[in-house]
């Protein structure tokens, strides 16, 4: 016998399944209707630009989370990539150039160098986690402080600016201008590109299937012929690349770089993943969910900004949202037993 579900029941099921998303949608409707300019293309662009960086980091960390790991070094790794990018795209005639011996480089070459470095740091993390058997929480905590130290030392804790015109031009490029609206920033397309790439990886490749298998049951995956150690190393390497890309965008977006960027971005990314349904018990998570999770956070920040709240309230509200989301996620599994 099939149970009939009426449309109201279905709607109720959706609401029950995504209470935080629904709550935010309602909240933004209320804010949008009461405050001018909330529903504007400028604000939308602002939201998407902020989301892009966080989304890339969240994609990186999602592989770690699905395999029951974590990565606390994401923000610091992104910051290192950001300052490196900054150093390499400084104008040759800029007075306080950090490395005056360096030739002016093409920004795409810079990107490649930064990504390669991200891959190296990620691989080191992966090796520590999977071959030295250090719990991911501890391993990435160590990497986090090491990377931060390196970043402070070589930049002398000084901010970096004076970028080449071509670099600035790339980040100022906009598309789809409508009336007064100058268009969306071009680099938000990277979010789309990497979203699609990760979707493909998670759903269509053996590597993606193995990630879910390891998260579902590491021992069973090993018995089924998955080389768990090398797969995990690959996951952390991919994550490193994503943080590096995010760092590159951070520098371009803000027009400057410093070692203090990216603080606690990893926590926002982990929180976003969790709200987006990446299970803390492993084996579950989708790219769509991650995007929604990250959007929820950025939307929340913008709402608080629009209602004129002290920006420091952000932290309190975010913490509450994360705890609520995870508590509900765990409850789903508790209820099944």
């Amino acid at each position, binding site marked *: 016998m099939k149970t009939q579900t009426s449309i109201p029941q279905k709607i109720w099921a959706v609401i029950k399944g995504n209470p935080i998303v629904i709550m935010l949608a309602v909240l933004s409707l209320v804010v949008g209707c009461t405050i001018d300019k909330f529903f504007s293309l400028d604000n939308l662009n602002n939201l998407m630009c902020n989301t892009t960086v966080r989304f890339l980091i969240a994609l990186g960390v999602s592989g770690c989370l699905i395999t029951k790991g974590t990565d606390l070094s994401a923000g610091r790794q992104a910051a290192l990539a950001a300052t490196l990018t900054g150093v390499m795209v400084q104008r040759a005639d800029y007075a306080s150039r950090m490395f005056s011996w360096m030739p002016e480089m093409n920004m795409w070459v810079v990107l490649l160098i930064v990504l390669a470095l991200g891959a190296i740091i990620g691989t080191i993390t992966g090796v520590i986690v999977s071959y030295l058997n250090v719990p991911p929480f501890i391993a990435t905590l160590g990497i986090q402080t090491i990377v931060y130290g390196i970043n402070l030392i070589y930049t002398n804790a000084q901010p970096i600016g004076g970028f080449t015109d071509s670099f600035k031009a790339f980040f100022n490029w906009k598309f789809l201008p409508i009336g007064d609206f100058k268009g969306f920033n071009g680099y938000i397309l990277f979010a789309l590109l990497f979203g699609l790439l990760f979707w493909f990886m998670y759903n269509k490749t053996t590597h993606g299937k*193995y990630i879910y298998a390891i998260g579902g*049951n590491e021992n069973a995956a*090993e018995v089924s*012929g998955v*080389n768990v150690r090398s797969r995990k190393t690959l996951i952390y390497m991919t994550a490193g690349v994503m943080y590096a890309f995010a760092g590159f965008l951070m520098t371009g977006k803000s027009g400057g770089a410093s070692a203090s960027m990216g603080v606690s971005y990893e926590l926002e990314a982990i929180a976003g993943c969790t709200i987006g349904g990446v299970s803390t018990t492993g084996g579950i998570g989708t790219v769509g969910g991650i995007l929604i999770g990250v959007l929820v956070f950025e939307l929340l920040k913008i709402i608080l900004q629009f209602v004129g709240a002290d920006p420091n309230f952000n932290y309190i509200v975010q913490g509450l949202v994360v705890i609520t989301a995870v508590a509900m996620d765990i409850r789903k599994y508790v209820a099944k037993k």
Partner: protein
Amino acid sequence: MSEYRLEMRGVCKSFPGVKALDHAQLCLHPGKVHALMGENGAGKSTLMKCMFGIYSMDEGEIIYEGQKVTIKDPLEALKMGIAMVHQELQPIPARTIGENIFLGRYPMKKFLGFIPVVDHEKMYADTAELLKKVRMDFDPKQMLGELSVSQMQSVEIAKAVSANCKVLILDEPTSSLTSNEVEALFRIIEDLKADGVAIVYISHKMDEILRISDEVTIMRDGQYIGTWDCAGLTTDFIISKMVGRELTNLYPERHNVPGDVVFEVENFTSINPKSFRNVNFQLRKGEILGVGGLVGAQRTELMEGLFGIRSHTTGTIKYQGKELTISRPKDAIDQGVAMLTEDRRATGILGVLSIADNISVASLKKYLDFGVMINDKKVEELVQENVKKMNIKTPSSKTQIQSLSGGNQQKVLIGRWLANNPDVLILDEPTRGIDVGAKYEIYCIIEELARAGKSIIMISSEMAELIGMSDRIMVMCDGRVTGFIDGKDATQENIMELATQFEKV
């Protein structure tokens, strides 16, 4: 007062799909050692867990010192004076002996007259006393993890004694002990007997049973068979009572014809000295080789060693004369060996993933387009083919595997291995925890595979299943292969005899 310290009567206990206990009973005299015997799965441990309050009984009663009682949980059992030393010890290695013994009931004192704190002096003094009682002279402050398994066991017994127990359950206490350690244990048991403790002794080792126990209760298939005074009993009598079940036609007719020897294992030895050693056997094409033995015979460990889950020191594995190098499961799979592991939950199913993901995970490389992209249609075909062939009952290929019944999960896992078209298929307890109907279907699948020329190794703890399905039976005891029996000549008695050939030290 009745003559018994404790009586359990008419105990029934069902788990989903299995009736584990069917009117079982057990009556214990004070000051006597009562052996509880039966095959693997006869319900001995389940009965003990009911007594100790780990499981609740569906039916039946417990009469303790003449009073009818209900035991809700182990804590209550302990308070009443019932203690249990488990088959698998669960100590806290990083704490001291004293803390392990008094865990949860530390002696307290008042600091500054009002702050309750643990009275360490009294705890360690009491511990020293207790250790003396079980003839051990350890420092009570020594870390438990520094002791050997047998020493830990003595500590466990000391813990039981410290609870002033009147009933002590020993579940396979000697399975990991050397003969000297066994003697030490027997001395402790004699002391406890003299103190009037009623002891339940579960073991497979006949000579021990006949030596130490005063009475024997035998169980079979969760039922009570009988209780006898130990004096005058013989090993043969006990075995016949343990296995005396009628064989009905629960197995398909076998038409597979074993061919040439294809798979050879020589001198295979574990890195763990207590595990499998010097194992030699051969397997023919199209043969079903049963592997029998008692719990702890290291059958699973041997097969996991062959499959690369566990490490070995010496030994070679050959397939059709060619030596295989296997250091991890992936190597075994790549060379045509597959293994259905014993514990479905721990090393089999990917619980939260779908049927399709579970069935395809070991053979994903076969469904790629352009070398990178998984063709979902091919995976779906694989699922549908298996669903049809093995009659897997599932709403869809996207259903989470953890929502299926045990039998259907097992079929999905068999499908996972068949997708790779292996030459040698190792099945470790393929029908454990599966209901009768699904069992027959799985037997049919095994027979079909053998007929198609696959070589099959099947570990089973069910005698009837071994005899009913095997062309040949390899029997192990305590890490060694103790003999081979032709399937036609196999009886429960001759298997049991080989399975209990412990090395005399």
